[in-house]
């Protein structure tokens, strides 16, 4: 895959904060409202309107910083970043420049091979989102008119900037998923990519493996899902490698990712880079971030994914990879913990297996989110009990599980209603085995000829006759007995 090249990636991730109101005014921060209904003189930048910092946004960025292992700056100071765009009412974005609120953090990712890696966070700063442009036409250039919705203007955003520590699309994907988990766990953001509450710019360069210097980087904008990001990284790395191997030089550029076409296109070159004329925001004097506030936020942090992973590994012997899958969503962890609580710690691995295999498969097929887990921990615990005491087989259990998804019934009720109890009664099973052997002279002959797998085939027939309710071990034993009896009789 690498062909002697190394890909170097740094990410700038924009995340909308889950505050009730916008960052500089009291307008509601909600997705999907009628256009231009959540607006006021401040977020429309009417003459004379002034910004006031939303304390809750300050708390949430500190929370994000602490959850991402950052240092917290003890002063909140803001700058104006000047540029003209129709979705930006003030003509400048209020952001942070030399003193981001959080700096020097990291995120630990776990790869499929079980190894982990630390991706360093350079800084996290607070700023406001812009409005949303709607073009009447296929794109901006073809549009004969454009409309602006300012409901999003002034929504609090944090920008999380990583160090160039990411080395592949896979690592980038793991990082973004982990980041998402942490931000959701802490309630910092809903992180709904489809609603634009998480957006990502990618800085990417390539260099020969083992090289000490970084290559020239390009910035990819407009990436709004994990899958798109991974695809964009692979495309862009290949593009840069092609240029270099053809004897060319990679130019420092800002490019736009067009996922529909699977390509990146040039937005602007380094020469065209805009001068944002940053200067301290005179409407927002710097405010001290009290030790007390940081302490309060720290105390409010929930158990974070890394702690969950360590706990599931330590307490239940789960693999790092399995533990990290459960840890992706807080709801999954809660579900796992409740199921283990009900089924007993010795069933923890079984709980994990059911959760990771059956449950996630079904949820995936049906497009359920983590807040829509269709089986209760209590239902799973009941099912495990039936398997454990031999009432049902593992195969039946999968059917029962599927049936639980579509009903609120517990496993025992389903088993009873559907007559799925495992048949371990040797007399009735022996009768079936003997009859099958009598009725199938062909396979019997194969058995005589020494083909031992015929026993498995007969066992399958027993299972079929009993609609899977037979205890497989018992059935196999009785089938072999019946075959031996039959050949002995001859």
């Amino acid at each position: 895959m690498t062909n002697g090249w190394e890909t170097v990636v740094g990410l700038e991730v924009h995340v909308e904060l889950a505050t009730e109101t916008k960052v500089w005014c009291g307008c509601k921060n909600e997705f999907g409202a009628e256009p231009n209904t959540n607006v006021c003189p401040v977020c429309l930048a009417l003459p004379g309107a002034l910004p006031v910092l939303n304390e809750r946004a300050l708390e949430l960025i500190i929370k994000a910083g602490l959850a991402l292992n950052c240092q917290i700056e003890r002063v909140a100071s803001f700058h104006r970043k000047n540029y003209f765009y129709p979705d930006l009412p003030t003509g400048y974005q209020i952001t942070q420049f030399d003193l981001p609120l959080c700096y020097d953090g990291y995120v630990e990712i776990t790869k499929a091979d079980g190894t982990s890696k630390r991706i360093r966070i350079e800084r996290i700063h607070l700023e406001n989102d812009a409005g949303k442009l709607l073009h009447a036409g296929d794109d901006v250039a073809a549009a004969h008119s454009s409309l602006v919705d300012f409901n999003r203007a002034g929504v609090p955003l944090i920008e999380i900037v990583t160090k160039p520590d990411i080395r592949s699309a896979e690592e980038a994907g793991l990082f973004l998923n982990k980041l998402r988990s942490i931000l959701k766990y802490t309630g910092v953001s809903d992180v709904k990519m489809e609603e634009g509450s998480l957006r990502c710019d990618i800085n990417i360069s390539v260099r020969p493996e083992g090289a000490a210097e970084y290559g020239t980087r390009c910035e990819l904008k407009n990436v709004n899902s994990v899958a798109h990001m991974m695809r964009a990284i692979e495309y862009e790395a290949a593009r840069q490698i092609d240029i270099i191997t053809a004897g060319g030089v990679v130019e420092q550029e800002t490019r736009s990712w067009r996922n529909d076409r699977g390509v990146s296109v040039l937005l602007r070159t380094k020469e065209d880079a805009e001068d944002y004329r940053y200067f301290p925001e005179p409407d927002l004097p710097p405010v001290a971030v009290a030790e007390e506030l940081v302490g309060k936020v720290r105390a409010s942090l929930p158990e974070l994914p890394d702690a969950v992973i360590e706990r599931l590994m330590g307490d239940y012997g789960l693999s790092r990879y399995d533990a990290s899958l459960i840890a992706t969503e807080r709801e999954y962890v809660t579900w796992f913990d409740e199921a283990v609580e009900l089924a007993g710690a010795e069933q923890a691995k079984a709980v994990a297996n059911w959760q990771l295999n059956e449950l996630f498969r079904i949820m995936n097929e049906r497009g359920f989110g983590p807040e829509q887990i269709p089986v209760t921990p209590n239902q799973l615990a009941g099912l495990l009990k039936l398997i454990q005491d031999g009432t049902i087989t593992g195969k039946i259990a999968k059917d029962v599980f599927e049936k639980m998804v579509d009903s609120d019934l517990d496993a025992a009720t389903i088993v009873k209603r559907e007559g799925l109890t495992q048949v371990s009664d040797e007399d009735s099973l022996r009768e079936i085995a003997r009859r099958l052997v009598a009725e199938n002279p062909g396979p019997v002959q194969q058995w005589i000829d020494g083909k031992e797998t015929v026993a498995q085939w007969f066992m399958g027939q027993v299972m079929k006759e009993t609609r899977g309710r037979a205890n497989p071990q018992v059935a196999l034993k009785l089938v072999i007995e019946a075959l031996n009896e039959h050949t002995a009789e001859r």
Partner: protein
Amino acid sequence: MHDALYNLSATELNRLFVRGQVSAVEIAEAFLARIEAVEPRLHAFLTVTADSAVETARELDAKRAAGEPLGPLAGVPVAVKDNVAVDGVRMTCGSKMLAEYVIPYDATVVRRLKDAGAIIVGKTNMDEFAMGSSGENSAFGTTRNPWDTARVPGGSSSGSAASVAARVVPLAIGSDTGGSIRQPAALTGIVGFKPTYGYVSRYGLAALASSLDQIGPFARDVHDAARLFSIIAGYDPLDSTSADVPAPQPEFPSEPDLKGVRFGMPREYFGEGIDAEVKARLDEAVATLQDLGAEVEECSLPHSKYGLQAYYVILPAEASANLARFDGVRYGHRAKDVADVAEMYVKTRTEGFGHEVKRRIMIGTYVLSSDVYDKYYKKAQQIRTLVARDFDRVFEEFDALITPTSPEVAWPLGERHDDPIRTYAADVCTIPVNLAGLPAVSVPCGFAHGLPVGLQLVGKRFEDSRLLQFAWAYQQVTEFHKVQPPLNTEGGR
């Protein structure tokens, strides 16, 4: 009796109304008639809110009839500079950009005026976006000086100053970024007060330079100015730069007395460029203060001379960003027949803004460019710190400072059209006060060349009430503020 209503102070009008000697509607109508009579010669107003003024007056009369509590400005007509938002009223900021713009909310000071029972009679003319010190940068014609209609009234709060001086309103609201209240007050012979930065909320004031702008009162005497100040001042959660201090309630003793009060005279403010007659009036004012028991001594503010240069970096820098919102997208002027967004911006702003505004936007955009930022903007901020430190140092020794408000009297209209530098220099005594965020008041201290001269008293941060007490004491023993401008005596009613 009603013919003379416009000669009364705010305090007197309020008293008459509260005692039932005159109705609010009578007051409103008398002042609206006065506006109509004087406006053709003065041009102080851009919008007269006659209907809502009468409506407010009716409500006040009903309140009084019902025995409900009446505010401290009940029945007092007030004019508001056209860069301060009055809900539902056109707000032009003196610019073509906002010629037809009706703003949908009240500035905090306007809200407080309304709550205090003031009758807002209109919006006053000003230099475009408060950039100027003559009034000539208004996109809607120049306000005249009531002392000589061939001369400028000063600026940028030209209409507010001229309307108070011409007895068209007893009180007016202005804004002061580098002298825009004090200088026109001096040039029209009235009281103009710039409070400590942060004392009065800026919410609803179209920003020129956010770190320098401050709203303040115009009145004909210090007592009225203090009354208006006490209503508009005080903490506002909508302005993050608003100081968390209660509204001041200046009190005045029965007798003027400045015994033991120490005044400093910064020698840099009396140097070259000051008109000899203006200097003479200042000397007389010093003698008057000494007669009241004050001690006056020379002092030095060595960095103030760099203040002008720092100001003309910081102001354009902040203004260039503050005026970016006027882009034709959401409100205000929008150019027609444009091919794309970029052309819309360029054409809209080229058409909508006047020369001085464009000049300052260009300067501001340049000084903030990343390659010269340290050389200009950062350096200017350093100078600003030094200017402020000078004041802190002299205030260890003195209670207040005496300077001229303007080194010269009102100049003829059109004289300095092509000389922005000379116009800028007129603000040399007022600008350092804004850089340091201090309170300063201009009071009339006589006449030079037949035109009013202003005495500027500069106070300590948040000691605004004390500063007003000094100015009040001075006015108790002087008569300059009672002299009527010729426009009034010629004009009759």
